[in-house]
């Protein structure tokens, strides 16, 4: 090019011309023949929302600078780009755009709408990425909703199933009533707000009215609300109909004389036993806790530890079930309000005080998460945790201190990883349950690859 033509000012609008030229000439193509040392980037596959934001820019400029630097240093760089397609936001968007609910059309039709929207969003995000000058090899694009990728997801499931690492089971799971699906613990995020701590009297059960109080299934209704039994401070009175025990700290002298005795649960009137457990914090509330199935993670462990009954009072959409008696059919908020009113008018409620609380919510729609007992598929993480930690320690973390986030998370893992989702737009994993399983199963699930 003639040097006399150098324009007076730098014109950044020419970025577009270079973008096109690089693409036409395919200069970022990964060769892969081993003639140069390989450098492979496990690029994040973003969720295709339709536009990149500055958070992406920070992430991808780091990736791209590194890719370009390694190429200059003589590496054959594999810089692919993927898209993590499946998820609720797309389903919600499709419902909005088409003015439908997901069950208004066939599953195939609904899935097609999701694919169309995702395809469009990928195209516009791809254009955004090119405008930023990122040097992906677009022939290496991967899309999690495409058959080639789904095949790998399915195969990975099958392999882990065959290795005994995946099983179906009925466990308490985190459940989003808005999305109506199970989610993994890692998908629960915590948010601070304030609520009321309600001080509720659980009166002593009238033992004489039961033939044998320990085994009796009868409801109570004999207790006098005003008779002092045990005071429970709860932020979740709407779950009282699922109360299966009251628990105190074994050394809490205020209550130890009540151990083994029974109290009657207000409003729903079932009698429950007073038990002791070290996990109770005597400093919080009144030091006595009701165990409901399932108010939180601790309830789950107590129910398992003491083999307590499970009362399902919440259905998939967060509506109270028949087990909730007079509250059947209400949503959780309405039930809470009504319960507090009833406790007050029937003389069980002693006081209310405001407290800060930390609520687990669905990371995608911010709805408070409930714990429900569900038949789902799980990855047995227990045996993998130690190996995962060893692997984390073998990696070079930049910055180093981020490693502890993964190690601490691994250490806090109490539940198996729930991997099934109640979604339409997701990777289907076909499985057949044989009704007459007299034949030994040779191959487990059907082979798919």
């Amino acid at each position, binding site marked *: 090019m003639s040097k006399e033509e150098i324009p007076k000012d730098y014109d950044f609008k020419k970025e577009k011309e270079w973008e096109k030229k690089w693409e036409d000439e395919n200069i970022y193509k990964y060769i892969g023949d081993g003639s140069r040392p*390989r450098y492979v980037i496990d690029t994040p596959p973003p969720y295709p929302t339709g536009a990149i934001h500055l958070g992406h820019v920070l992430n991808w400029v780091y990736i791209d600078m590194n890719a370009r630097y390694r190429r200059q240093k003589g590496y054959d760089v594999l810089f692919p780009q993927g898209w993590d397609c499946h998820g609720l936001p797309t389903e919600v968007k499709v419902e909005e755009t088409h003015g439908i609910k997901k069950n208004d059309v066939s599953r195939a039709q609904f899935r097609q709408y999701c694919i169309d929207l995702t395809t469009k969003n990928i195209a516009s995000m791809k254009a955004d990425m090119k405008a930023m000058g990122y040097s992906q090899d677009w022939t290496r694009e991967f899309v999690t909703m495409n058959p080639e990728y789904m095949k790998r997801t399915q195969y990975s499931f099958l392999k882990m199933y065959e290795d005994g690492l995946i099983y179906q089971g009925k466990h308490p799971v985190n459940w989003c009533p808005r999305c109506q699906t199970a989610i993994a613990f890692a998908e629960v995020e915590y948010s601070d707000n304030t609520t009321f701590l309600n001080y509720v009297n659980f009166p002593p059960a009238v033992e004489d009215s039961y033939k044998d109080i320990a085994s009796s299934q009868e409801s109570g209704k004999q207790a006098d609300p005003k008779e002092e039994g045990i005071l429970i401070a709860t932020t979740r009175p709407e779950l009282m109909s699922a109360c299966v025990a009251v628990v105190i700290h074994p050394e809490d002298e205020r209550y130890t004389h009540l151990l083994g005795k029974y109290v009657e649960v207000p409003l729903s009137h079932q009698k429950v036993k007073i038990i002791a457990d070290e996990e109770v914090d005597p400093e919080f509330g009144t030091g006595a806790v009701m165990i409901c199935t399932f108010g939180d993670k601790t309830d789950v462990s107590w129910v398992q530890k003491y083999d307590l009954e499970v009362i399902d009072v919440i259905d998939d959409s967060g509506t109270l079930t028949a087990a909730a008696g007079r509250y059947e059919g209400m949503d959780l908020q309405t039930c809470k309000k009504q319960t507090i009113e009833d406790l007050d008018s029937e003389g069980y409620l002693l006081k209310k005080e405001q407290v800060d609380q930390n609520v687990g919510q669905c990371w995608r729609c911010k709805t408070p998460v409930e714990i429900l007992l569900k038949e789902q598929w799980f990855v047995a993480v227990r045996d993998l945790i130690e190996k995962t930690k060893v692997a984390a320690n073998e990696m070079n973390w930049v910055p180093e201190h981020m490693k502890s986030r993964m190690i601490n998370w691994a250490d806090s893992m109490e539940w198996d990883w729930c991997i099934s989702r109640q979604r339409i737009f997701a990777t289907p994993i076909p499985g057949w349950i044989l009704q007459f399983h007299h034949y030994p199963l040779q191959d487990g699930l059907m082979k798919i690859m």
Partner: protein
Amino acid sequence: MDSSISPLSIAGWPDEDYVNHFPSDIRPQGHDIIRTWAFYTTLRCIALTGQKPFDDIVINGMVFGEDGNKMSKSRPEFVVGPEEVIEKYGADSLRTWAANSVPGSDVIFDWKDIKHGYRFLRKFWNAFRFISMQIFDEEIAYGDVKDNLGPIDLWILSKINNLNRTVDEAFAEYNFAETITSIERFFWHDFCDEYIEAVKYRLYTDVSDESRRAAKYTLRTVVETSLKLLAPIAPFFTEEVYQYFSDESIHTTSWPEVYGELINDEMENKGETTVELIDEVRRFKSSAKIPLNAELSEVNVYTSDEDLVDVFNQFDEDIKGTLKINDLAISSGKPEVHEKIIEVEPDMSQIGPKFKGDAGKIIGYLKSTPIDEIGSVLDESHELTIGDIVVPEDMLNIKKEIVGASGKKVDILQSENLDMIVEVIR
């Protein structure tokens, strides 16, 4: 489930040759998804292959708005989209903002940083354009000039080779902020502000051919090397400039070679010292409203540091050429300067009331007597004796100036950083 096999999918798993591309060399991701994506990927790859999924994991921070909060739809006035920045300043300016940070740290978006990046690219362009008239007319190889490189050339060449090492190391360690800031510091300040100014005289005046070719080689080498170091950060800009160097894309070229023999700490120190002197005199020119390209008839540098004498003698030509000094003298010791009275006027508000009718004699004396004679009387006795009248010094308005050994008027500059006093004769 799906995204936790990304490194396997990229490698072509479960085809057998996936092992050629697995584990990945690097996993770049945000810290908000360590518990999810990083954890599940590791767990799944361990379960499926028994191996860790990647060697390096580089974590980036989050972006905050100008109000210091995470950008969110609830505060739309602080949400900026990349397309808005690209439209106003181009993608490369936005990339320089992102590059000026380190993994793991959250980053605030600030338009000031974007504008700064934009200004740097424009500065680079203008410098390139200015020297483009010089660097493309002949091909000059290192071997052609290596024996003729001047001290200032050796200074900047040592610096660019050191910069190469610094930036190389910083990229290898993902220390991105170090890459852009050290390139900027070097190019903007050492190269544009100092080196280019210091070689103009070799390009435009009648110096030797060897010296001019050495300067041209150095200019071209520094610009071309800087471009390649900057290429990962500003791919569009560097490509735009590089097209004048080659038909090849800069993005298919290799990392520039380090010329180890040119790295010379001693030369760098000497260069910095010289730059200090040049800056001192340049600041003086500018504060005295003397055009930077105007000549200075004489500059005398005094120091008690023998090393400085050697340095300035070695860089003698560059100092003279850059500052347009006709005579430059470097001496050890201190300048012989003194104050000299150049004008004496009567202070009539005091002389009038005190001497009344004799005031005229005083005025007459001051007008008729040579200033040197009045000066020496005042220096000695601090009063004037005119007949029987004695006029004390404080009844006179006395103007003085500083003169050097030769008796010419001088300006004295004292350096804050170096042990030197500079005497300038305009």
